[in-house]
């Protein structure tokens, strides 16, 4: 039963993943990715790790993919063919590029998986406790793996700060340009309580 489910979910996840790169509309790519995440979450459940399954749904399906959908809808991206004139490469050229990158990534992941020692966490779980026991997982995350954990969060923080800085600078330059274009007018009051 579990094995059948695993192969079913794995095949579905792969099919959805192919759908992500094959779909002509970006919106369907996002939805395919969502389906793929659902199948992955199911596989985590089969592995006896419900916490990871719920987190996968909460973080990826519930938050990140919504933001993806947002961007696609706000930019109103339609059929891929309509984007032709905006892109540097032709459609087939882009497909070749994407396919090549995907194949290279798959190769790297395969190599890493072949060399990986999969017992690296399980070896450190205290005797008689399972990794899906949340206090055990949290304990490991905040003691043994404190440094990688904090490094990852620091990286995310740096990204956020970087994005804000970039967005702010853009606004600043456009205000300067506006002033330069209309020097006769008095300078607009910047940051005078206007909603941001």
């Amino acid at each position, binding site marked *: 039963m579990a094995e059948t489910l695993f192969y079913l979910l794995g095949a579905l996840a792969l099919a959805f993943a192919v759908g992500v790169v094959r779909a002509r509309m970006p919106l369907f790519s996002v939805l395919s990715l969502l389906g793929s995440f659902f199948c992955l979450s199911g596989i985590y459940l089969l592995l006896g790790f419900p*916490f990871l399954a719920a987190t996968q749904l909460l973080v990826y399906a519930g938050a990140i993919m919504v*933001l993806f*959908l*947002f961007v696609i*809808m706000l930019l109103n991206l339609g059929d891929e063919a309509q984007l032709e004139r905006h892109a540097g490469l032709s459609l087939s050229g882009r497909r070749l590029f994407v396919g090549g990158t995907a194949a290279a990534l798959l190769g790297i992941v395969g190599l890493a998986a072949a060399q990986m020692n999969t017992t690296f966490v399980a070896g450190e779980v205290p005797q008689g406790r399972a990794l899906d026991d949340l206090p055990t997982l949290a304990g490991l995350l905040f003691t043994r793996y404190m440094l990688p954990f904090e490094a990852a969060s620091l990286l995310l923080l740096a990204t956020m700060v970087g994005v804000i800085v970039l967005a702010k600078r853009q606004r600043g330059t456009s205000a300067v340009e506006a002033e330069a274009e209309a020097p006769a007018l008095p300078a607009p009051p910047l940051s005078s309580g206007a909603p941001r």
Partner: protein
Amino acid sequence: MSPLLVTILKVLLIYGGVITLAAGMTLAERKVSAWIQWRIGPNRVGPFGTLQPLADGIKFIFKEELIPDGANKFLFRLAPVLAAAPAMMAIAVIPFAGEITLFGVHTTLSIADIPISALYVVAVSGLGVYGVILGGWSSNSKYSLLGGLRASAQMVSYELSLILAILSIVVLSGSLDLRAIVAAQAGGIQDWNLWRQPLAFGLFVIATFAETNRHPFDFAECEPELVGGFHTEYSSMKFALFFLGEYVAMIVMASMTATLFLGGPEVPFWHGAPWFVQLFAFLAKTSVFLFLFLWVRWTLPRFRFDQLMRLGWKVMLPLSLANVFLTGLVVSFF
């Protein structure tokens, strides 16, 4: 009777009960609004209008179903399902009552008792945003698109405060299991999390209003500006599915409030009460919050969208973060 059959029976009973409750809520909404506005409300169908939901359902089924030109037909059909399904899924872990013996099988009155049920409710109900956003986009109408975008921005923003409010309860109880959270409040009224976490309670209730797109945060619909918001173009049973999803989500959120802050099915001053008394206590606590949804809707005006965003990100989020931090401090040092 085998345990599997008992589980199927529980599924049928609980979902039947919840959908009946949702239908009752549509009637309650019209009745309460009528009372607040000094009217009588629906009173033609059945005694005191009690069969009105049934009449509404039949009307929905017989209405013509329109799919607008230029709409994405696949997504247009998918969206109502995606709007209703997550709320239905979340019902599965709500602890309606404690232990119960059904046909000789000893079990608990909830469909599934999983060790991470609090996280499950949040994870699943967070998916409800897809129905709204896809319904808004696939209708190929500017009102729908604006409604869908606004609603999803709002749901994503307030989900953070919602999760953090739950997190402070989880820190206090030391478990993600709703049954364990209920057991931690078993001592009586003075043990309810409402007194230990008043700030989290306030934040949670406000966030549930935003999560279910109810007044004063109903930007998904916002009739004066957006006609009907994301479901402007929907008709017939597809519209009814959106409606059903909204009301079931309200029931989920109200029962979560009762579970997290009011001791769920625990009866005050009577620990170990029989299951029907517990079920009654649970429904009574839930109805308080269901009534609050209606009361607020017909009393308060709607926010402006920038006010909503400011409240979510600049008031609720810092407050809930501070609350989690303080709770952590108290739990570790006292």
